[in-house]
């Protein structure tokens, strides 16, 4: 049963079809509102509303772009001092996680700070008007990669895994129940926990605003986004990704995913082949990384 209580109010300033509000709503429900949110510069810092109003019913501390995990470190120390029974949750975009916030993120993970860091990854800088980030996939159009990005995204989850954190999970805006369960699971661990949500963004990815969930599902079905958990470093595929790995479900044609988004409208056959190679390589790497990957 998903919690009934709402912690993010409707009518906020987000775009229609925004995956961030959709996922944050579910995350706060899973946390039963017992969380202090730390938000670096991102769409969330805008859609939460302008002073003196706010759309979020839990305490929120807005912080500088590069500083989320460090700011959260300080807040957590203070909440512990006052014996406050709640989690500190960083809610950051991919720019604030993959790029400018990586140093603080790595530092906090290495120190084992007791927090949940959630990256809602829409694969670009969306709040500043759609620019390339370290999470933007090969071939994707952005305002700073007008003929398509020429590099693959980095795999930040692998970077986080190398920090020996107790819990890591990937999720998608296409599967909100799965996200809910993963946040609940994260609550069972102490220390640094990392969850990354693929967050398809209608204006940035150029698809109709009623298709956010559908695109979130297509990403997983086509193998471009892999759902898994890593508990104390042991990787376990989940959801559709698990079924694909077990051979119970056929991976969808990559074209179904790419063609649904205007940002891939101009890719060539060579680009498509390159994206497919990257997808297959990631799958192989994940499957090889643990013989008991699926249990």
């Amino acid at each position: 049963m998903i919690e009934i209580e709402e912690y993010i109010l409707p009518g906020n300033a987000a775009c229609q079809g925004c995956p961030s509000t959709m996922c944050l709503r579910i995350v706060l429900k899973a946390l039963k509102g017992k969380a202090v949110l730390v938000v670096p510069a991102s769409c969330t810092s805008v859609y939460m509303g302008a002073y003196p109003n706010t759309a979020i019913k839990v305490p929120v501390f807005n912080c500088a772009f590069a500083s989320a995990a460090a700011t959260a470190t300080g807040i957590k120390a203070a909440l512990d001092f006052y014996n406050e029974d709640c989690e500190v949750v960083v809610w950051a975009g991919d720019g604030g996680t993959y790029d400018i916030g990586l140093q603080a993120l790595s530092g906090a993970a290495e120190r084992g700070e007791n927090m949940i860091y959630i990256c809602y990854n829409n694969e670009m800088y969306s709040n500043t008007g759609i620019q390339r980030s370290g999470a933007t996939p090969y071939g994707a159009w952005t305002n700073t990669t007008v003929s398509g990005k020429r590099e693959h995204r980095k795999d930040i989850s692998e970077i986080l895994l190398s920090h020996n954190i107790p819990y890591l999970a990937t999720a998608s805006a296409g599967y909100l129940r799965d996200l809910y369960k993963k946040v609940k699971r994260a609550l069972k661990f102490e220390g640094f926990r990392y969850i990354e949500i693929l967050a398809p963004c209608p204006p940035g990815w150029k698809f109709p605003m009623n298709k956010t969930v559908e695109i979130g599902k297509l990403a997983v079905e086509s193998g471009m986004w892999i759902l898994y958990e890593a508990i104390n470093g042991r990787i376990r595929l989940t959801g559709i990704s698990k079924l694909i790995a077990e051979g119970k479900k056929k991976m969808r044609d990559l074209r179904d995913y790419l063609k649904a988004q205007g940002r891939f409208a101009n890719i060539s056959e060579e680009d498509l082949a390159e994206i497919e190679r990257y997808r297959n390589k990631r799958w192989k790497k994940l499957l090889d990384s643990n013989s008991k990957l699926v249990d």
Partner: protein
Amino acid sequence: MYKVLTGNEAAAYAAMNCKVRFVAAYPITPATSVVEMLSRFIDEGRMKAKFVHVESEHSAMAACIGASAGGLRVFTATSSQGLAYMHEMLHWAANARTPVVMTVANRALAPGWNIWADQSDSLSQRDTGWLQFYCGNVQEIYDTIAMAYRIAESKEVMLPAMVCYDGFVLSHVASPVEVPPLNGFIDEYEPQWRISIDNPFTHGNVCSPEYYFSLRKSVHKAHEKALKIIPKIEQEFFECTGRYTTLLYDTYKIEDAKRVIVAMGAIAMEAKIAVDILRKRGEKVGLLRLRSFRPFPVKSLRSILVDKEVCVIDRNLIPGVGGVLHQEITASLKKDVDSLILGVGGADVTAEMIAKNVGRLILEVGR
């Protein structure tokens, strides 16, 4: 009771006795031994605080801001490149109204790696909204930190404060220091506000031009209020410790002085000896040693210096401008002020050197 302490050690003792509960720091010469000592105090159980070994100065200040917003008394120490790396977060700490106190062991900026005394690191953070106090000896470091917490945390102010002292010249030179307990002067921190799950609010969200303007005005007004409460805090510090330590400025032989030297930091102490040297030669010279650069006691400076010839000594050289302090004093007095730039990048400055330079200016300008 006296202890023989370096400036950095005195800073660590002050942080402990001020009941700091959170330290986040990153090592940098010549400030490192402050936090090494704090780390030891905490390890030995003499100080009840959490120490976070962050991965950068940017994160050190971010963590301090977070912990301060969470209701803890916080401390960090840095210098030079580290302070420059914090720059964004310095602005953040002021606008967020988090009363962080930080020591800065003044040091030059690279390239041309230079670890020696130079005030351009903290002076180039002049406009961040922080209070800035400059110390002339090791005792003042201890006393200034204690008073800085009281001022920073007072309801009317609620701003972060920097306690600055010359790298190596004060950070690493030992002298006898009185280290009184500060109970009664500074007790367990009772924050004006703090993040709490029981009192949800959103801090620092989007702010319209009207609200932002009023926020900046309130930070500006807080500087004026800080100026007003400093004499009261000096008095309370005296009542608690039996020692009067001036925090705004100190004067020496200015009553009959025709010419007044204005300086900050260790050089200002050297200038005191220079005054005596010049007086022996019959020159009517005095000294105004500025302790509080922010808040800037502009009205007091005007009334003291109105009918004096003024010579400012700067241990910084801002390209295209000259000395920062000279610029500030000139702007406040609205008249011509002589400028001496000495000791940049740690060049040694002696009383004789100051006397010689001031003497030369007197000859140039005429008596």
